[in-house]
């Protein structure tokens, strides 16, 4: 039985964005906006508790580096556990999305 939101919260979207490679916070925000074609906009500060929570759960790892402008910057990357969690949530979302679509169209599950 899928969860009631299909597991597609902000943490899942962040994991999905990091699937394409290591990124820092601002990059993740830009990527979320671009991939959703501007539909998905969030208060940018709220990304950080999500990232730090994922890091605590060891779903992402972080390393520090210096930007071109000389500022300290944290880069995040998916861990193996993060990849597995993302696969699980993708599957869960697909089931949920199929069920909702079926209900909206008045049809049956495909």
């Amino acid at each position: 039985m899928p969860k009631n939101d299909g597991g597609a919260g902000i943490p899942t979207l962040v994991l999905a964005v990091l699937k394409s490679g290591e990124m820092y916070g601002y990059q993740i925000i830009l990527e979320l906006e671009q991939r959703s074609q501007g539909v998905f906009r969030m208060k940018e500060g709220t990304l950080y508790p999500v990232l730090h929570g994922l890091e605590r759960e060891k779903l992402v790892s972080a390393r520090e580096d210096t930007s071109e402008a000389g500022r300290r910057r944290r880069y995040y990357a998916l861990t193996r556990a993060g990849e597995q969690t993302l696969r699980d949530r993708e599957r869960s979302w697909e089931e949920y999305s199929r069920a909702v679509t079926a209900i909206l169209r008045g049809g049956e599950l495909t």
Partner: protein
Amino acid sequence: MRDAWFWLTEATELIRFKPDKQAVWEELSDHIQCRKEALLHDFPELTPEEAEARAVAAMGDPEPLARDLARLHRPWMGYLWRVSQALAVLAAAVLIVGLPAYHFIRGHDGLLSHFAYLVSWEAEDHYPKLGGAELLETVSCHAGDRARPGGYTVSVRRATLERWKSETTAFGTLKLELSIHSWRGESMALPEAVSRVTDDLGTEYIQGSLTPGWVFYSSAEWGDLAPLGQRAALMLFSVPEDAQWVELTFGRGDKTDTLRVDLTGEAEL
């Protein structure tokens, strides 16, 4: 930076673990600067202050953010991490320095006497020139396979036969340096573990005797856990001139094994 400074102060004010607070401040500050630079690039008509104000506004309300960040960066977690790191360093230091030091101190007396013996290995005056006997030659002997009596492995690190001759007799003294290891990490009880010493002529060497006999010289423990194991030195007296080999039997009962030393090596002198 006025807007950003106030926003950052508010967003991080509930984080009590200072290193975390500093790191979060820098990370959020970098984000605001990135957004500000992008705004100035896309909207050249904006002043830096206006761009910063917009970048700060895009970050959202700092109050709920401060609560969420404080929940994730609790001070005890930071201190616990530091304590665990310190304990790990301490444990590594104990393992690297403390354990060998402990074993060295434990076997210190044995080590000193053993080293003293090894230093005198080549010296001529360590053995009395009984009856005016002269040293004819020194022979490096070959030791055969290892003996494995009751969980121990005994091998010969060095064996030297000195051939002596007087007007009335000729005899040899055999000096043996043994290396002893045990898979249980135990030290062999010496000299009790040597149950018999004999040669191919049937000579029985009696412990403590000079004619013929053997003495236990020294034993040094490098520690039960140390890979170097245990070293011991024995000396056999009155080895017959024409003896081809001597054999040491270790252990008692059915847990015995023998170690043979070939006396027909190459003369060094």
